[in-house]
């Protein structure tokens, strides 16, 4: 009776808690073995939160969603945020299409890029701190900087946007996706055999899923390996999953980390992929692009952008966005777009001229790429001379021009899934699909490195030295000639003469 009394008292003391909006965390890792023997690993961590940051009542209780990002979203009324840090350039022809494309350097939405940002552990550390489990449990334990940055390509990104909660889409929830895309090079890691394991890639194995995650899965792409003739996967798993991603139906072996049985008797999962044969062709990507600077000298130049449409009979539209810094003065009257040797007039051109030291050029064009062709976009430019205080400390390195962004709706060989709310792996639900016959793809070209005419920074020092020397020697000599008086001085007599002079002085006789 007493105990019940106390219990009731305790219950009334606890303030009535309002049900918190539902939040959910999922993590997954997709590993795709590439034909050259390299491995493409893509991590995705997604937090979904059914709340509204734009309401007047401020959100105060954060559980899985990081508070620092939540405060930024509500203070600045952000609707969508995409920021990525990338080291290296994605080689579409060798590696296929990435799940999440990103340009080299730092990128914010589509328009703001810093091509020269170097990504290192100091960028990864605060990124890892945004995850609910940090880097202590789940898939994030594999993110060790010493192995991760020893790769051909590394990209980490944060994407925040609103998504529909259900198919009716009357309410939205906030989605935060943190992604890491990395390509590990076979030769770089110093391996003799063509064999990969989680330990070799990340210097860690998996021991448990993140306790806060509702789903934690590891997918291996085995589409090119239906009978196990290309590579061998161990430990074997019976779970298979199919998904349509990037216009192709792919099959995956699935390891569910929330199940105890995945880890086996040793309580740790060290996946092993052993290559057996070198044959097999990679599917050629339907769209890829290149960009380079032509010309000679430090005055003028030409930017060439090439876009390849590898589809045998379908043409598709492509939106090309170029943001060129103001110090490359583009001559838009020399802009030409040619496909298969003939002129190809873009359906839409939008150009915003640059303003010196204020904003860059913005050129956006919608071009229809004919089937099985190369489209070349060329524009001439002139290099500007900067003021001497505007040069960075290492101007002879060159100046970077950010990547062009090419967005396109590429025809798909397989029917794409337009139902955006069905349970799907995270990597196949990044870009929502509106129609079944094509899928959205975005590729980035290489950034350019151009040399601007650089002055000789030692010139002011040289001029000062020379002028001061001339003035000192010239004026100094003149001053001496005018103001000094000259006297004849007897040379110092020898010792014998000096003694003789002393004796003569004593005698009172004039000296020698």
């Amino acid at each position: 009776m007493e105990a019940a009394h106390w219990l009731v008292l305790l219950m009334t003391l606890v303030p009535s808690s309002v049900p918190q909006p539902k939040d959910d965390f999922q993590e997954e890792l997709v590993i795709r073995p590439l034909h050259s023997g390299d491995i493409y690993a893509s991590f995705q961590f997604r937090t979904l939160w059914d709340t509204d940051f734009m309401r007047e009542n401020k959100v105060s209780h954060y559980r899985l969603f990081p508070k620092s990002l939540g405060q930024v979203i509500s203070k600045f009324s952000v609707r969508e945020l995409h920021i990525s840090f990338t080291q290296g350039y994605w080689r579409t022809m060798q590696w296929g299409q990435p799940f999440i494309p990103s340009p080299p350097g730092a990128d914010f939405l589509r328009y703001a890029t810093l091509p020269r940002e170097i990504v290192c552990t100091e960028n990864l550390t605060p990124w890892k701190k945004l995850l609910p489990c940090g880097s202590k449990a789940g898939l994030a334990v594999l993110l060790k900087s010493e192995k991760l940055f020893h790769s051909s390509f590394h990209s980490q990104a944060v994407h925040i946007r609103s998504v529909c909660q259900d198919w009716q889409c009357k309410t939205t929830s906030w989605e935060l996706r943190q992604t890491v895309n990395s390509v590990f090079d076979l030769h770089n890691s110093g391996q003799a055999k063509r064999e990969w394991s989680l330990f070799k890639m990340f210097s860690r194995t998996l021991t448990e899923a993140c306790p806060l995650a509702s789903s934690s899965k590891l997918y291996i792409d085995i589409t090119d390996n239906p009978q196990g003739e290309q590579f061998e996967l161990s430990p074997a798993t019976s779970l298979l999953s199919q998904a349509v991603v990037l216009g192709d139906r792919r099959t995956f072996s699935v390891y569910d980390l929330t199940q105890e049985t995945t880890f086996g008797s040793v309580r740790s999962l060290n996946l092993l992929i052993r290559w057996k044969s070198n044959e097999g062709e990679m599917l050629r990507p339907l769209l890829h692009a290149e960009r380079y600077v032509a010309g000679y000298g430090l005055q003028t130049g030409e930017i060439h952008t090439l876009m390849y449409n590898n589809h045998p009979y379908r043409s598709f539209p492509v939106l090309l966005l170029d943001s060129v810094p103001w110090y490359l003065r583009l001559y838009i009257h020399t802009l030409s777009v040619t496909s298969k040797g003939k002129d190809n007039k873009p359906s839409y051109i939008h150009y915003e001229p640059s303003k010196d030291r204020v904003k860059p050029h913005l050129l956006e064009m919608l071009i229809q790429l004919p089937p099985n062709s190369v489209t070349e976009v060329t524009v001439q430019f002139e290099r500007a001379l900067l003021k001497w205080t505007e040069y960075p400390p290492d101007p002879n390195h060159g100046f970077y021009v950010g990547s062009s962004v090419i967005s396109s709706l590429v025809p798909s060989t397989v029917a794409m899934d337009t139902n955006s709310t069905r349970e799907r792996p995270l990597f196949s639900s990044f870009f929502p699909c509106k129609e079944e016959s094509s899928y959205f793809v975005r590729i980035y070209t290489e950034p350019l490195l151009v040399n601007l005419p650089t002055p000789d920074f030692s010139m002011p020092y040289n001029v000062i030295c020379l002028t001061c020397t001339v003035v000192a020697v010239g004026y100094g000599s003149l001053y001496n000639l005018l103001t000094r008086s000259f006297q004849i001085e007897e040379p110092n007599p020898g010792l014998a003469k000096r003694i003789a002079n002393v004796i003569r002085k004593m005698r009172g006789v004039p000296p020698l």
Partner: protein
Amino acid sequence: MLALLMLNILAYMTPNPDKTQIIIHLLSVISQNSAGQFFSSGHTNNWAVLVCTSRFWFNYRHVANTLSVYRSVKRLGIPDSHIVLMLADDMACNHRNPKPATVFSHKNMELNVYGDDVEVDYRGYEVTVENFLRVLTGRLPPSTPRSKRLLSDDRSNILIYLTGHGGNGFLKFQDSEEISNVELADAFEQMWQKRRYNELLFIIDTCQGASMYERFYSPNIMALASSQVGEDSLSHQPDLAIGVHLMDRYTFYMLEFLEDIHPASKTNMNDLFKVCPKSQCVSTPGHRTDLFLRDPGSVLITDFFGSVRKVELTMDAINLTDPIKQMEENPVNGEEQKEVYSYADQLPVSEIIHQKPKQKDWHPPDGFILGLWTLILLVFFKTYGIKHLKHIF
């Protein structure tokens, strides 16, 4: 008991109105003598400003110097929020580094001073003389984030460490500009007048480093340098795999000395002055203590390099403030959300092609205004006669 201990430690680390109430309550309970002993060292928080001013791969050792001091300072308790780390170039992920994401301080790659948990506040081109002086004096634009500010007060002990290439009276920043010893002394005087420090320890590891502290004139500054005027500071040893010199001698021996310090150690400044004698360093390290009020023998190393909290145990109970009531959630609106959302089209081709051109502002045709005025004048003179012309001209 343990809860009270934790409360004490937390109370110092997070300024919070509720918790400061607890401190004041607590202090009044303890006797007056121990309260005086509590604050005998004079400082309540520690800050560190660590600057590497050199760019380019062959200046790897300067980054390694700064990172090893960063490592020691973090290990002894100063959190990242109280450290302003400025590195002028990136060595760890530099394409010439055979082991990416590492910076080593000793050959045979024994100690990776870059580590796994490093936060750099100013990197690359941001490390300039202007930014450095702005950080010291606190005159930063309002949009600067907290991690890039030195938010010290008059009870802060600040450690300032500079390394790079220097000469007699100047320190070179990134091979393009210099800071002179006069500017530095004036910056410290500004800090003193704004009450931005309690005590300041200034360490510099460059050639002719002693020239940089010659001009200081503000009180409570202690300075150490790796070499005297006219001497060069030398580097320690190269690593054949990495291909560059890994560290400078003075900082290398100072790191060895600091590795033996732990948060509870009682080593004082006199031991730090003895680090790296001429036999090891080849140059003669110097120090300056005339501006410092306390005797260097009574100053602990952890007063500057660590962030040691004083903890007092108490047996008395403390009344906390009333429990925080959860805010009443506004009742959900009765009316249903009529609006239906949908995803925007990623590439709306037809919309782009059939866009209406933007409305430009309408301007009258060229010469129109001039023609209009000519017409008005002609009509005027026709009506009133040409004789009026001479009144105008």
